[in-house]
């Protein structure tokens, strides 16, 4: 599972590291497929991904091609529901109910349940074995602060993964971040990689 929206807030170094390590047969969960040569799309272009749960692959024709060829199994979900499903995973609830009337025809034909008078679908929470996120600042406890619209899905992914790895611009001693400004409490972060060198 990866944070970022397009290339904004995408953990570029961690993606490169996965590529170099030769990891393959990945199942990826993230908002889009990046671009063929930038962001998460690199892993797809290099044939390392077998399944993709996402909302949109328009910016990565290579993903579309692999999907048509049957090499990449893609499951689409409307974007806001997708984000909620990751959040549900992040706070440990099994799923959410969504209004089935919203979903147009982008469905697999399943039946809705009637809930409080509305046709609803039960949507399972999304979690992952590993989550990679990008943040601007971290402290030594793992608390994270993002940067403007590079926040996007990152705080959700940070909570929804069993092991969360954060790629950060800077790591400061605990106590130096304004506790009001922290978006992801450090208890959700397992490892950090400092973009300017040095891990933690």
């Amino acid at each position, binding site marked *: 599972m990866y944070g970022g929206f397009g290339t904004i807030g995408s953990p570029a170094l961690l993606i490169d590291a996965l590529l170099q390590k030769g990891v393959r047969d990945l199942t990826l969960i993230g908002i889009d497929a990046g671009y063929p040569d930038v962001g998460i799309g690199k892993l797809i272009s290099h044939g390392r991904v077998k399944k993709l749960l996402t909302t949109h692959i328009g910016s990565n024709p290579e993903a579309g091609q692999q999907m048509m060829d049957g090499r990449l199994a*893609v499951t689409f979900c409307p974007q806001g529901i997708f984000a909620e499903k990751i959040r549900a995973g992040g706070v440990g609830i099994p799923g959410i109910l969504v209004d089935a009337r919203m979903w147009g025809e982008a469905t697999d034909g399943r039946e809705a349940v009637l809930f409080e008078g509305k046709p609803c679908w039960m949507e399972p929470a999304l979690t992952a074995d590993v989550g990679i996120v990008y943040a601007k600042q971290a402290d030594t406890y793992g608390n994270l602060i993002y940067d403007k619209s590079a926040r996007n899905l990152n705080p959700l992914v940070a909570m929804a993964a069993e092991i969360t790895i954060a790629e950060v611009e800077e790591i400061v001693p605990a106590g130096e971040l304004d506790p009001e400004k922290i978006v992801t409490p450090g208890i959700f972060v397992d490892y950090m990689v400092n973009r300017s060198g040095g891990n933690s």
Partner: protein
Amino acid sequence: MRLTMDQRNMIARRAAKEIVPGMAVNLGIGIPELVADFIPNEWHVMFHSVNGILGVGPTPIQGEEDQHISNAGGAPVTIVPGASYFDSTVAYGMIRRRKLDVAFIGALQVNRRGDLANWIVPGTRVHGIGGGAELAFYAKKVIVLMSHVTLSGEPKIRRECTFPLTAKGCVDLIVTERAVIEVTPEGLMLTEVMYPYSLQDVIYHTGAPLLISEHLQMVE
């Protein structure tokens, strides 16, 4: 027919007239992105971006882009006073709570009941549903901005959509380079014809019956 930049701007300029000061507005990718350029700053319109901004400002001056301030399409933007950043669940929370006054959205097809198809051309390239379904379903007013016909000249406004729907009965208004068309309970109502197109041309290139407004305007 591929639109010229002039035509795209003309659509955006016309679309901007649907906005009044103080509204919260979502601009989709494509022609909708251009709408912001036609809204005066002093209107304090709050532009919403699903990646997590409320209060998107104009395109930055070249060389002054901030790599971490971008819209949902990935284009660099700025923010206005009163803007805030949040994660995408909050961005979509605003949408579902019907806080958005207008959503401008691109389309592949619209039918006479205002059904919208904009996420997949079966058998060709797949984009994915993205955020379109939720924006279209929940925004108080949905305005489609698109070319009137496809690259091969086929009408995009049709009796029935042939592509899978994004959302049903959601479209309120259609603005193209040729016409402005309202979706009414009685059907599609043509209210404006854009220069240099003629009424006949619009009717000819529209694949659904059109009611002609008694206030029909021929726009120069």
